[in-house]
């Protein structure tokens, strides 16, 4: 049970954040690839409430000395703190800014991106599954609202207003990025905010291209991110060769202000 293992999906979304964070801080972890889009998070890694009820939905699971942990930003913070990394500003106000940025990504951008990504890439896969296999997959899910998100994605009948709202969130994220990028990175120094933002936006370039049209600073930042050693190593973990098309149900769209 000792040591550290990372059960990760394709390097996209939350799995990309955590894989890259491992490489950034030089964490020695056994990397175990699982297919999040096939529901393997509910079958392969050890189970634990905090994983079952993670607000992130289908994300990677980091097991440290037998304790399964979830939620990509917090896993990145854990890795940074356990390995003496420098992915978080030390000064309290700068730290607050990083947390506020990550919160914006977690609460507004990630639900939008995962809706758009799942609609484009996961809906067809789930529709191709037979009912028995799909019901088996969903039956293993401990959280009823996450199970419901799987069903919604399989149905694929997303209201137009919700799709437009999600596209709007991606445009807003890029607008904010465009105003915020400070030198090479979002907050000046390279932080977890860069990892988490890139992890959710990289796949949006193909799905919401208009958001990136007049955003030269964001595009240059995306290129810098793609070229960063930790991201390259994370992307090299892909088994499909097309990680930006890999989506699993993510966090829910805020149901209360």
């Amino acid at each position, binding site marked *: 049970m000792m040591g550290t293992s990372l059960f990760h999906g394709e390097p996209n979304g939350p799995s990309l954040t955590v894989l890259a964070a491992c490489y950034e801080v030089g964490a020695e972890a056994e990397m175990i690839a699982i297919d999040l889009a096939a529901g393997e998070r509910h079958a392969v890694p050890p189970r634990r409430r905090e994983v079952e009820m993670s607000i992130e939905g289908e994300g990677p699971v980091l097991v440290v000395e037998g304790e399964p942990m979830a*939620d990509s930003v*917090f896993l990145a913070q854990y890795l940074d703190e356990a390995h003496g990394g420098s992915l978080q500003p030390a000064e309290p*106000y700068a*730290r*607050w800014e990083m947390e506020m940025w990550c919160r914006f990504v977690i609460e507004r951008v990630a639900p939008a991106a995962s809706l758009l990504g799942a609609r484009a890439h996961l809906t067809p896969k789930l529709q191709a599954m037979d009912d028995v296999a799909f019901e088996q997959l969903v039956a293993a899910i401990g959280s009823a609202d996450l199970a419901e998100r799987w069903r919604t994605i399989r149905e694929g009948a997303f209201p137009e207003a919700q799709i437009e709202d999600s596209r709007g969130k991606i445009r807003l994220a890029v607008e904010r990025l465009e105003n915020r990028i400070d030198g090479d990175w979002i907050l000046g120094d390279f932080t977890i905010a860069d990892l988490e933002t890139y992890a959710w936006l990289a796949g949006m370039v193909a799905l919401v291209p208009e958001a990136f049209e007049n955003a030269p600073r964001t595009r240059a930042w995306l290129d810098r991110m793609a070229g960063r050693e930790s991201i390259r190593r994370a992307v090299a973990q892909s088994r499909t060769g097309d990680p930006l098309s890999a989506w699993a149900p993510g966090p829910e769209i805020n149901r*209360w202000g």
Partner: protein
Amino acid sequence: MSDEVTLFHWEPNANSGKPMLALAEKGVPFESRYVDMLNFDQHKPDYLAINPQGTIPAMLHGGRVLTESTAIMEYVDAAFDGPALMPPDPKDRWRVRWWMKFMDQWLAPSFSMIGWSIFVGPAVRRRDPQELEAAIERIPLPERRTAWRKAIYNQFSEAELAESQRRVAIGIGLLEEALSKRAWLACDRYTLADVNGFNLAYALPLSQPHLSNEEKTPHILEWLRRIYERPATRQTWALGRTEMVKRVKILEREPQ
């Protein structure tokens, strides 16, 4: 630049109570600026100049404005001397963050929806209809406008209230389970997760008596009582101005 702290807050409860209690635990004096949420003070120009989102709480420190109750608490813990409210062990820190997120994004919104439907809505509904419409129109965040509209006109659907109640029941179960394993919510010491959790749950035995009581949730009750006994909690709840704060009295222990 001023090193003084000013906190804009409503009653010690939910999001306002989090930074209030964290500041009290750290022993940081602050200028208290009461924002009467039921009077829509948070949407008035004076306050919007501080926080254009029109939500409470907000804090001023060193000439800067900080918002988001949980992020403010983490800032307070890092920026001031006084007892540490984040544990030193990285895994314990992960657990503090996990619980705060779970509460902030999953459990508290469900509590809020129920609270707004039975308390906030009725508290303001009787006012002049035109005044209320104008008040709603002044709300900057569209999501908050929707929430106020539903509360005022009693428009929460049965399905969404039932979903909130389902989540509250599950959340109570998770809290009880965690607190039966450890003395405090995230680890073996008092942390921001407990400060956060107390603000969410202190009135549980009153608002959800069938789900939270001596038989079903002894660990939650004991945890709430232990937090209520802390001097910082007494000091914070004394800053309340409405009947609401009196609910905390259910946590008084029976005289032996």
